[in-house]
């Protein structure tokens, strides 16, 4: 029972990070029908930027409280990632809107590779330890352990999701985004500028990715140039799982995926008599995905029929 509770907590933490990243994928996909393969790398850049800033700040003012250092590094990571994602869209995706659908996919893959390589040149390829800035004392809940970092992740996710939902459903920008996702041509006739909306979407996605990156780094304690790849892949799976293009679906998909992974990793060993171990946890996501899509090709909450390639 304690194992289950512990794995549920771990799963929720993991899932909320997936959800944040998945939102970036799903918003971009909803508007321009593109799998933004570079999204995971934006997360990586966010985490590494914050790592650098934290390093500087700890040298410049050793007495600063941990939460303040984390907050400042987070804000700078937001700015860097937003600028980066804005530029990526302008340079690599916008010129290709008239082109066959696979062309922007390839530039996205190229961008992902480029960012990884540049990060490797800037930050060196070794693993770097990410400092623990929040109190390390864990809490006990019914036999399970939860750290302050994990609480911070859950809380921040809940807050940022609420802000995003408010933004999308109750602001002018949000309405423009929904309109553009529905039909860009008609939206333009109504006075919406699709290009501005798309740029805004990329900026919002980048901020969510940077947030997830810093959380990922705080949770696992290491950063490296390839760290964005796997969470990016999982988050995309989560987005498809929930029904790509659907914001609620991305959140649901992310959290479910996190739970499946954590609970699966906790129980697969005993269930199979030790034949399969937790090293298989990375593929639960894909097995679930294949299963769900076979039964419901548009994802859990998706309604729109998938376009052809």
């Amino acid at each position, binding site marked *: 029972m304690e194992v289950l509770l512990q794995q549920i907590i771990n799963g929720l933490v993991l899932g909320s990070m997936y959800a944040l990243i998945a939102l970036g994928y799903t918003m971009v996909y909803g508007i321009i029908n593109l799998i933004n393969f570079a999204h995971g790398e934006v997360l990586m850049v966010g985490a590494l930027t914050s790592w650098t800033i934290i390093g500087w700040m700890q040298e410049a003012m050793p007495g600063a409280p941990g939460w303040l250092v984390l907050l400042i590094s987070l804000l700078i990571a937001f700015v860097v990632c937003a600028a980066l994602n804005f530029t990526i869209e302008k340079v690599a995706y916008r010129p290709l809107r008239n082109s066959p659908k696979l062309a922007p996919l*390839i530039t996205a893959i190229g961008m992902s590779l480029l960012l990884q390589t540049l990060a490797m*040149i800037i930050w060196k390829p070794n693993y770097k330890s990410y400092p623990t800035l929040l109190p390390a004392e864990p809490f006990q809940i019914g036999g399970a352990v939860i750290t302050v970092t994990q609480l911070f992740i859950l809380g921040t996710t809940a807050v940022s999701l609420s802000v995003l939902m408010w933004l999308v459903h109750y602001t002018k920008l949000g309405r423009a985004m929904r309109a*553009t996702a529905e039909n860009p041509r008609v939206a333009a006739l109504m006075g919406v500028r*699709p290009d501005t909306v798309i740029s805004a979407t990329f900026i919002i996605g980048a901020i969510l990715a940077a947030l997830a990156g810093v959380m990922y780094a705080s949770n696992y304690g290491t950063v490296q140039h390839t760290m964005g790849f796997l969470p990016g892949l999982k988050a995309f799976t989560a987005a498809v799982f929930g029904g790509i293009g659907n914001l609620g679906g991305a959140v649901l998909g992310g959290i479910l995926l996190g739970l499946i992974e954590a609970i699966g990793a906790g129980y697969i060993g005993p269930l199979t008599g030790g034949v399969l171990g937790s*090293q298989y946890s990375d593929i639960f996501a894909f097995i679930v995905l*294949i299963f769900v899509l076979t039964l419901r090709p*548009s994802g859990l909450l998706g309604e729109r029929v998938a376009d052809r*390639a």
Partner: protein
Amino acid sequence: MKTKKLATILIAALALLVLPLLLQQGGNAWVRIVDMALLYVLLALGLNIVVGYAGLLDLGYVAFFAVGAYMFALLGSPHLAEAFPWIAANFPEGLHLPIWATIPAAAALAGLFGVLLGAPTLKLRGDYLAIVTLGFGEIIRVFLNNLDRPINLTNGPKGISQIDSMKFFGFDLGKSHTFFGIEFTSVSMYYYLFLALVIFSVILCHRLQNSRIGRAWMAIREDEIAAKAMGINTRNMKLLAFGMGATFGGVSGSMFASFQGFVSPESFSLMESVMIVAMVVLGGIGHLPGVILGALLLAALPEVLRHVAGPLQAMTDGRLDSSILRQLLIALAMITVMLMRPRGLWPSAEHGKSLNKRAGKDPIQSINP
């Protein structure tokens, strides 16, 4: 005019035949690069059937390459004898089946996996299919990485070594041979084998393209519902595309295994799949010369650059080493080529032409509704 064409073909054939002899003067490393490039051409041709002809975006293609390579490795190395006592009792040296059994087995198993992947994904299209195939590739890789326990089938991350070289009726491609007083090294022998396979595949693909099957695939690619309405059995055709593409992957995999003498899960990462897709799209999707060009460019050019990267590395204090430089160049090439030629470097004349699509400058018109 006709004699001129014939002359060009003859010169090209002659050049291809003597190429390894010239290259091996500069060391076997150069021939190896060309060999690997030819293998990638083979893979790209296989994926082109799935993506280029049938329009099914497959991001897990390397899984079939892996299945073929491992099948060949298991049947042609001492590994199974080490892992299973009952095999060791009967075949103390390992199975070492002849290539007439191993290559078809590798091709068949890969083809079977192709159909197995195709079957549950028939309803999916576009990006949904892409992500499922990607997941499939990862599943295969994780299994290869972990199937050393409880029974040691794949030897885990350590991989399988001592794989047999290709032997045709006792003629061993793994050794040097001398003909007409010229020494042909092992890598050059493999070059001829791969070249023959590539030429055979090109002819096969070309014939396929103009056959009923090929036309059915292209109809599905352009408009699946219309194709179905015209009486094409879309389910069977898609499964056939997956199966044939995978078979190509399986054969290439067995070639790779025997050429390297060693396989490990590292060679079959997602990046490889992505690279093969990039080759097909970069060259010109669905167009054979384009696909070959794309594969040669992405496979060979970076390797050549790796050899000239030494001075650059020295100039930047070793911060830009050859493998990083190679990645950087591939990434930049992918982006710039697509930006400048979105339909690929050498696109086919008709592909992508649609009746009602007008390329407008208006950005709004361009976004898919």
